[in-house]
């Protein structure tokens, strides 16, 4: 849910619920505007819509991974070849990537990864908690800058800023998408 105050929706403004459900499309719009040409991902419920949007886009090469660190290396290769890449993962995947982050950090390769958080808000699975707790610290420990968003409005602006920092200023950025924003996992 968003921080939008409750109230009747009018014709010009979408309801808070509608905005909340449209954030993947907003991120897609922002990333397309940033000229992202490759997207790599490990299947993730939180990123489902964004994965579908990219997969249907003939201008973007999507690569499904067996483990998240593969995408870190692919993004570096994409940049060597002149293309911008984005990597979608879940917070548990950050743990898989730690050594591979040395590649973008040492080479100042642009890195933009969007990380859906687990283990921090209404989490039902205790095994998700340790990596959820360690995600930000692990990223920062190896030199990846962390930006975080817990509301939809904040998320879209944050990804826009993160894309500029990554692709224009050669930074390595992980945007953490708070679990509260994604909503409780349905079983």
């Amino acid at each position: 849910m968003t921080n939008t105050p409750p109230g009747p929706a009018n014709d010009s403004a979408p309801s808070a619920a509608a905005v909340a459900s449209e954030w993947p499309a907003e991120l897609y719009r922002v990333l397309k505007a940033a000229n992202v040409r490759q997207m790599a991902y490990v299947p993730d419920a939180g990123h489902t819509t964004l994965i579908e949007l990219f997969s249907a886009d003939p201008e973007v090469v999507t690569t499904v991974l067996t483990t998240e660190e593969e995408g870190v290396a692919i993004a570096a290769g994409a940049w060597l070849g002149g293309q911008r890449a984005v990597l979608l993962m879940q917070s548990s995947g950050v743990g898989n990537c730690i050594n591979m982050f040395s590649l973008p950090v040492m080479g100042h390769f642009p890195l933009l990864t969007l990380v859906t958080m687990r283990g921090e808000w209404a989490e039902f699975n205790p095994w998700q908690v340790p990596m959820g707790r360690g995600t930000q610290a692990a990223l920062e420990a190896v030199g990846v800058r962390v930006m975080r968003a817990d509301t939809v409005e904040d998320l879209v602006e944050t990804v826009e800023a993160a894309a500029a920092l990554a692709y224009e200023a050669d930074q390595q950025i992980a945007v953490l998408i708070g679990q509260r924003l994604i909503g409780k996992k349905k079983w």
Partner: protein
Amino acid sequence: MTDLDMNRPHTNHPGTLARRDVVSRLLKHRHGALVVTGLGSPSYDVHAAGDRDDNYYLWGAMGGAALVGLGLAQAQPEKRVLVITGDGEQLMAFGSLATIAVAKPRNLDVLVIDNQHYGETGMQTSHTGRGLDLARVARACGFAEAATLRTMDEVESFSATLRAAADGPRLFVVKVLAENPPRSLPPRDAVHVKNRFRAHLGFPVR
């Protein structure tokens, strides 16, 4: 015995080719292919054959070489990309063979210089030295072509295919002697190597 029997060590025949000879012979016929190297001896082998702007050397990020090659191949579909790495590095990225097979790049060759040992860390026997056949794994994953090369004639034949169009990704294993030739060290400044590589492709250095 099965073809892939982990319980019987050293079932693979060790190679007799000298790795430097293999790499320098191969790179004479690179025909403008962009080259990415895995950390350790493959980086030294490629550097020893001649430092070039269109080489990208990895000094770390073990397991990343073939995937840097995939991202590059996807970004530059009109050029061929050649990844030269070692058996240990490729074994760490076992899943990358699945990822590359599914991605189906038609311009990516992975060459595994296989000495069946971890040469950087004390020459311990690797999985390929215990019978694992990376070419068979690549074929099972869905690579368009995969083979193990044991003679210089086979290496020559492979080099002749480097400029040919392919139906999908290819993986070749070259069995070499377990030796550590004198180190030939590429620049360790990853930013410098990145910038000159991109400049080679016509991208502005910034």
